[in-house]
């Protein structure tokens, strides 16, 4: 803990951009800038797709059919926004914690470039010729290897930063980020082989696909977000986490069980019963890391006015919302894995709502929070507009909650009113993301380091 506090902002008073952050500037701004562009594009596509769910709808052009827009929006959010942003933020976080001055940022930048080119190709292909059968792997087969190589170039630098850390000591945030990077690359390569290039026979392909989706969602996105959460909660509150000695148990159980939750999404389908049961057990066992992460992070937030301090810090306001949403969505997933509950929820919009909670209210909000802290330190200029930050928080908070409520309310059956609520919430998300994008690019364009003054987020 103490080292996290010490290594956080060295020489903040003299130079805004630290020795560690300065060489990060190029790749960080490239990756994060493209992430924000993808976020805006993805939200716009989601908004058009949400229109499609209203009876009025519009048009019958093949390119704007719901399936294509939804797939393109999902890929833009997952790989474009969360992927790029986590490349940047994970590298920043582990450079901070490992005092790592990257000398080969150009490799990360090239990786990011290829990652984005492959994504542009995929998005265009999904919209023009339709998505494949497997969500999150529905881009053209040729894009898979490009994405894997690009990830190795851009996404593994946090692991190098961890390996090169000066002391033998390490922090929970580092474990989560390192394991997230390694496990995503492994899972992606294996999924490419077992689902796309040499498909497993019959239902095994569906099992492999569900495993990839859960691994990529929970381990890479969720794991990185929890890593950022572990760092920022303790950093902003400037105090040790509650029951920190349990963090290693939380880490190991989280990474052990997350992959095993996958078959829970296949309950009731014609896969062998033992596979489904393994999914049920995995989902229930996820309650152990949920409990422990809650004890660590929410415990620290609950002591001595932690919540009000979190509310008054831009970064921690977003991140505490994100952590709560991630934990809540995992509790919901465990509840829905129960066979009798699952029988009622199986073909409803429940999974949709739970996914919104995990990805939009959870992972995305955590990334926003971390970005509010990291971007000024790397770019050397403050966020220009506090109003845009407030707009962003409330619009994306209400938008994410509204989307989840709209999905949960339609469990019993489709409802016009709730489809409209979903549409408005998607619009709110887009508005919030536009405010964030405007603020981000204003920061990037200001360019030169600001004179000594405390950044807005503290």
């Amino acid at each position, binding site marked *: 803990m103490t080292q996290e506090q010490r290594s956080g902002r060295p020489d903040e008073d003299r130079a805004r951009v630290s020795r560690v952050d300065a060489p990060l500037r190029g790749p960080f701004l490239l990756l994060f800038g493209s992430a924000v562009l993808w976020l805006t594009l993805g939200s716009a596509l989601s908004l058009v797709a949400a229109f499609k769910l209203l009876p009025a709808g519009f048009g019958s052009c093949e390119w704007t059919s719901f399936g294509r827009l939804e797939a393109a929006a999902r890929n833009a959010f997952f790989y474009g926004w969360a992927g790029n942003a986590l490349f940047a933020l994970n590298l920043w976080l582990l450079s901070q914690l490992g005092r790592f001055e*990257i000398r*080969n940022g150009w490799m990360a930048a090239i990786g990011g470039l290829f990652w984005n080119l492959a994504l542009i190709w995929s998005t265009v292909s999904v919209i023009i010729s339709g998505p494949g059968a497997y969500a999150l792997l529905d881009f053209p087969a040729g894009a898979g290897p490009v994405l894997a190589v690009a990830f190795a170039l851009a996404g*593994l630098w946090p692991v190098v930063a961890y*390996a090169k850390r000066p002391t033998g000591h390490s922090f929970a945030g580092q474990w989560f980020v390192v394991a997230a990077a*390694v496990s995503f*690359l*492994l899972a992606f390569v*294996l999924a490419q082989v077992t689902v796309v290039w040499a498909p497993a026979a*019959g239902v095994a392909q569906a099992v492999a696909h569900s495993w990839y989706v859960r691994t990529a969602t929970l381990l890479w996105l969720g794991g990185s977000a929890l890593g950022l959460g572990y760092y920022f909660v303790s950093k902003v509150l400037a105090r040790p986490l509650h029951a920190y000695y349990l963090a290693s148990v939380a880490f190991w159980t989280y990474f052990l069980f997350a992959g095993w939750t996958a078959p829970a999404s296949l309950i009731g389908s014609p896969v062998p019963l033992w596979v489904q049961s393994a999914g049920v057990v995995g989902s229930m066992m996820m309650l152990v890391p949920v409990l422990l992460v809650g004890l660590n992070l929410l415990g620290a937030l609950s002591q001595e006015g932690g919540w009000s301090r979190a509310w008054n810090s831009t970064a921690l306001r977003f991140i505490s919302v994100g952590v709560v949403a991630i934990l809540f969505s995992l509790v919901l997933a465990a509840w829905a894995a129960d066979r009798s509950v699952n029988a009622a929820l199986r073909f409803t919009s429940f999974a949709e709502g739970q996914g919104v909670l995990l990805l939009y209210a959870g992972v995305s909000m955590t990334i926003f929070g971390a970005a509010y802290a990291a971007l000024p330190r790397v770019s050397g200029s403050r966020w220009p507009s506090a109003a845009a930050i407030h707009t962003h928080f409330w619009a994306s908070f209400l938008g994410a909650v509204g989307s989840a409520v709209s999905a949960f309310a339609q469990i019993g059956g489709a409802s016009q009113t709730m489809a409209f609520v979903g549409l408005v919430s998607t619009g709110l998300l887009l508005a919030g993301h536009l405010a964030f994008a405007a603020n981000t690019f204003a920061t990037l364009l200001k360019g030169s380091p600001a004179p000594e003054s405390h950044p807005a987020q503290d």
Partner: protein
Amino acid sequence: MSELPPRSRPLIPGQIASWLAVVALVGAAAAASVAAYLSFRGGESPAAVRRGQQVALRAETEAKASALLSSSGRNDDGTYRIPLEDALRVAAERPEILGRLAPPASPVAPAPASAGAFVAADDATMKRGQAVYARTCIACHQPTGMGLPPVFPPLVESPLVNGDPALPIKFVLHGLMGPVTIKGMTYNSIMPPVPGVNDQDIADVLTFVRQSFGNKGSSVTPAQVKAVRDATAGRAAPWNTAELGIK
């Protein structure tokens, strides 16, 4: 060891060496998993082989059909064939030509009428056939033999079932794909081959079907099934309606 000159640089800078080590570690783990998966998975699965044959057969049938429509050629009986478009244009310009058209020399595919009077099969055969039907056919064609329009076609009053027994024997042995029209409704599904039935079972179940639900077809004998099975030995792909000349 000897002293290094003060400004010498390593061949691979430290950070890149670490990065390569990480990539090698992850790559080795991925390669080991992929190798294990591929050895566990084995070669091409029979299902994939059959799928490939189906795709090839469908492409071949389509190529043949489009060749019939679009290119000139010579028929089996020695007459010449011109593309449909050309024929229509000629007919439009010189309508009198239509009057000179002769019917084909030999009628194509004469309807195979079951010869002789209807002979009902014995009760034991019908009972065995009913048992096979309940095991293998009933899910799609239903207990009534009416099928489930518009997905599964009926067996009742279906010329495909009640005509030449070689056709239903082929369907049971290898399956059937492509559109069929029965009682004015077109069904475009795939009937998979029926696994786990021997010649006797097939003869029994077809006899049962051809003499139940109001059908009055001839009995089918195991010898007939064996003849078809031998004649089509080695075939894996389902029969295609275009290939059999069924509409």
